């Protein structure tokens, strides 16, 4: 809650209250004008409260954004371990830019990570290919292995 009482936030709260009270006041003034016989004022009497409501909506959305956004910035800086070299590199590239509240899924092309463990079939096939390369003109059925 403390982060909503910084000077800039107090200025926003004050601006919200001032705007809403003045918009509602203008709306009430239009209601009195309409009641006095100025029929066109009924429209303005509807418009001003809507604008006041919009101010409250934007203010509330900013408050929610501030409450939700502040704690997540810390964890977003550090990419989760084990996400692979591609994801880590992109996470550090995007860390200094502001993160949008809702993000589209991004398709990341995955690269095979050589973790040291050899696939037996792949190794055998590679040995076969290197044998073919070493014996040009040899037929596949001549392969000894």
């Amino acid at each position, binding site marked *: 809650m403390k982060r909503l009482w910084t000077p800039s936030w107090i200025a926003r709260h004050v601006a919200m209250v001032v705007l809403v009270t003045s918009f509602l006041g203008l709306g009430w003034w239009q209601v009195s004008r309409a009641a006095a016989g100025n029929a066109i004022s009924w429209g303005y009497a509807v418009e001003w409260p809507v604008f006041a409501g919009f101010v409250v909506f934007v203010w509330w959305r900013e408050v929610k954004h501030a409450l939700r956004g502040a704690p997540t910035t810390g964890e977003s800086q550090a990419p*989760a371990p084990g996400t692979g070299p591609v*994801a880590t590199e992109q*996470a550090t590239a995007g860390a200094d830019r502001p993160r*949008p509240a809702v993000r589209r899924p991004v398709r*990341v092309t995955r690269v095979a990570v050589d973790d040291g463990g050899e696939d037996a079939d792949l190794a055998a096939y590679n040995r076969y290919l290197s044998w073919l390369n070493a014996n040009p003109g040899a037929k596949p059925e001549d392969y000894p292995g």
Partner: protein
Amino acid sequence: MRAALTRYRVIAWIVGVVLILLVVIGMPLKYGFGNPVVVETVGQAHGFLYMVYLVAAFDLSRRANWPLKRMVLVMLAGTVPFLSFWAERRVSSLVVAEQREREQAPEPVAG
């Protein structure tokens, strides 16, 4: 994002034109010649169109992740005759440039 920008541009243009009609034609007619018909009709419509403008500007600012200050300035720019057109062009070029920048470095989905 592109669609939100187009929506914003369309309504910004409409609101800008209506506002100029109001200021350049409506107000001289009402206060100079005592004929309030333009102000009464166009003025009323302008209020409701400006609501649509506010919603479009809010939607765009949310998608583009603008700071609050820029969103408020864009919203206020819609109330100033003639300046609203310059603001619309400025917003468009800014959004397009930022989006191009973002496309060059796509964000990861994990993290």
